[in-house]
């Protein structure tokens, strides 16, 4: 019996140590990939990755932003018209989007669309020993493969979040003003009174930056450290999406509490 308890505790310790080692490896990978003198040719690779990570995510971001904005407009209108204050719908749509929904939903979509692709790509490179052959040529795969993808993620997501917010707000405008007949002046006027650029828009962008960092880091580490088999790649891709989503939601709560938690 005592033996069993000791074994259990030892197993727990082993798991914890393993996780700590993994986090240490992930941190080292990030440090090595980001602390490098950029060369002229790295810009070309960055642009290539910006296209894959950013531009190719645009469609899903645009479409979901439009629909989320429209749903917010519709729900906000029905809810607020019960209190006779449907002109506040613009304010509700804008604050919800700028503070919460745009960073979180765009980041979740980005993790599913771009993060999983990054993991699978790097995992396959590892499985087919492309990373090892790069090293044989004396090219550091962290600089050549990981770094441009990391920076591409960091640059793309905040831009995508800004686009998401704006398209969502126009989606809300489409439903609330064009369809349900809220006066356009009060839609924009209430919004402009309620939304503060520093406090709301920039804090939303800061959230996006944190999420971009988390997603890129998790996706690249999962790809870089996956088992070089087909099951290994599929498991790593799944882990990327699951871990990124959990990290986004968890950090969103912490950031929201810090930013809007009413520091008294």
């Amino acid at each position, binding site marked *: 019996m005592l033996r069993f308890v000791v074994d259990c505790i030892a197993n727990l310790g082993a798991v914890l140590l393993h996780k700590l080692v993994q986090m240490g490896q992930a941190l080292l990978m990030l440090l090595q990939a980001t602390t490098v003198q950029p060369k002229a040719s790295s810009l070309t690779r960055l*642009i290539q990755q*910006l296209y894959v990570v950013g*531009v190719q995510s645009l469609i899903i971001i645009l479409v979901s932003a439009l629909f989320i904005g429209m749903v917010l407009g519709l729900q906000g209108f029905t809810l607020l018209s019960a209190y006779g204050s449907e002109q506040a719908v613009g304010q509700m749509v804008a604050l919800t989007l*700028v503070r919460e929904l745009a960073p979180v939903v765009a980041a979740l979509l980005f993790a599913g669309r771009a993060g999983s692709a990054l993991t699978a790509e790097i995992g396959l490179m590892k499985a087919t020993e492309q990373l090892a052959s790069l090293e044989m040529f004396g090219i550091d795969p962290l600089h050549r493969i990981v770094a441009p993808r990391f920076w591409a993620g960091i640059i793309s997501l905040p*831009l995508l979040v*800004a*686009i998401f917010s704006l398209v969502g707000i126009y989606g809300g405008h489409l439903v609330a003003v064009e369809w349900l007949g809220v006066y356009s002046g009060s839609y924009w006027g209430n*919004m*402009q009174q309620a939304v503060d650029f520093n406090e709301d*828009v920039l804090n939303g962008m800061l959230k996006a930056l944190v999420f971009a960092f988390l997603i890129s880091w998790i996706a690249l580490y999962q790809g870089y450290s996956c088992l070089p088999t087909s099951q290994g790649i599929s498991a790593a891709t799944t882990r990327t999406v699951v871990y990124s989503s959990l990290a986004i939601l968890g950090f969103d709560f912490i950031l929201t509490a810090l930013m809007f938690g009413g520091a008294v």
Partner: protein
Amino acid sequence: MNKRWLELSVGAMMVAGIAALVALALQVSGGSMRNVGHYPVSALFENAAGLGPKAKVTMAGVTIGEVVAVGIDPDTLMAEVRMQIYGQINYLSIDSSASILTAGLLGEKYVGITAGAEDDLLGAGDVIEDTQSALILEELIGQFLINLGDK
């Protein structure tokens, strides 16, 4: 993939993202940055019920600042309302009066400033002496019921 097209689309995305941020600044937040330049002023009220931080401070219906904190002044045991008035509103006279008002019947509470006549101006850290407390609906209804009972 044509390299020219690649660069063009990435550039277009960057421009679209930055343009969206600018639009958020101008169209959505109305270019409002409340935290630029302000000076502190306080006022003592007999009752500041319903007033809290972030409440508006207005003059003639125009927002000129916001409430920072509401607390009890230990000497007079009155409610001390600390406010920040925007820096560009630097022409309030020292005998201005402050009252706590309600937007609509059940709306939020805010502070209304009425300008005075003195030449001396209200500066940083000054206290507004002439104040009028919050209207408390329950007290008003109580008063009304008592009056009703007297008849």
